[in-house]
């Protein structure tokens, strides 16, 4: 059975400051072949890692990095400062953008209001309100053919003139003379009269 006291301690406390426990382990490892070998090998491993030769850097590495950065698309090049022309175009376009945005916003609001209005009318509260509302009666304009409030004075001449015109009309249009045609009893009933 291999002793792993030192190995286990190193795994759990290897990066902590040396303690009394470590001193005890050192004393133990002096008499323990497995633990002393582990300590020896660990030291050899550290020594080898410390002296690892640095890898040879490829000569064309910088050039390759430079090429790969050159291949970055211009739109990804976010850190580049905008030119004078860009600033000018931006200066002109910005107010237009703001105006368009406001117009769009107003249009959306009005569309939303239009869509919402039927539902508002249809709500029970609104229906009740409309039903209770008194009908508004607007005063009609007087027609120019309507008679004036004041009575017009008619003379005998006017009446005789009118009667003459009426007789002339009846003579010219005998079919319009109602009193001359025979009337059936049913027809008179329509007008609420009995023969």
């Amino acid at each position: 059975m291999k002793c792993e006291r030192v190995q286990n301690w190193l795994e759990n406390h290897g990066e902590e400051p040396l303690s009394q426990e470590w001193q005890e382990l050192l004393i133990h490892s002096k008499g323990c072949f497995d633990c002393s070998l582990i300590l020896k090998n660990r030291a050899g491993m550290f020594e080898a890692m410390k002296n690892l030769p640095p890898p040879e850097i490829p000569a064309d590495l910088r050039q390759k990095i430079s090429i790969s950065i050159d291949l970055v698309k211009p739109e990804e090049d976010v850190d580049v400062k905008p030119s004078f022309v860009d600033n000018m175009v931006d200066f002109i376009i910005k107010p237009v953008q703001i105006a368009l945005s406001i117009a769009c916003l107003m249009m959306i609001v009005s569309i939303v209001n239009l869509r919402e209005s039927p539902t508002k009318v249809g709500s029970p509260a609104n229906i009740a309100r409309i039903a209770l509302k008194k009908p508004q009666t607007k005063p009609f304009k007087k027609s120019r053919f309507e008679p004036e409030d004041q009575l017009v004075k008619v003379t005998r001449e006017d009446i005789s003139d009118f009667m003459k015109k009426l007789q002339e009309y009846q003579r010219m249009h005998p079919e319009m003379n109602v009193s001359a045609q025979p009337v059936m009893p049913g027809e008179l009933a329509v007008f609420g009269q009995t023969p």
Partner: protein
Amino acid sequence: MVEKENILGTFTAQRMSEDMRTPESEEIELVRLARSGNRKAFDRLVEKYHGQVYQLAFRFFNNKEDAQDATQEVFLKVYRALGNFEGRSSFKTWIFRITSNTCSTICQEKTKNKKTLLQALIDWFSKPPVQDPSRVVTEKEYQMELQSAITEKISKLPEAYRMPLILRDIEGYSHERICEILDLKEGTVKSRINRGRRILQESLESFFQRKESL
């Protein structure tokens, strides 16, 4: 504009060597210029960090092609995300975090794509021949073989343990820095390092036995 050109002119004139550290203020200025779209400033940052990023990626994959791909991907991400860099951590920590995440992503994608039969055959034939344990080797040869084995075994470690172990035992960063880079709690980082070390040590058992026989 003139001020920027003067700063760049100063940097171009100095052209410091790879291992010479740029003062922090200069790096902040470079990052600021790169953020504003200055390509030369970005190239200076690439020049400064591409070696370190490549080294980290190479330790992770133990493969030149994958390390190169990862390095290119890292700088592409840095270029795109430079505008989001807030400076809460250092630029180096930020770039190392991107490297760690990129390596993990590539590793996960590779494990998803199952190997074809042809690829498996090619890999099998391209593996170095197993050394005869009875072969007599010198101490120097043994050290080289051990280092080569460690590099290979690290790249075979479970992904979760790989980057913490590399950053701690090879790159030599502190726990706090590793926590910052990997965006993990200190306890998690420590346990991953310890567990990774144990797995690595157990996988190198045969090499240590050879050492005993020397």
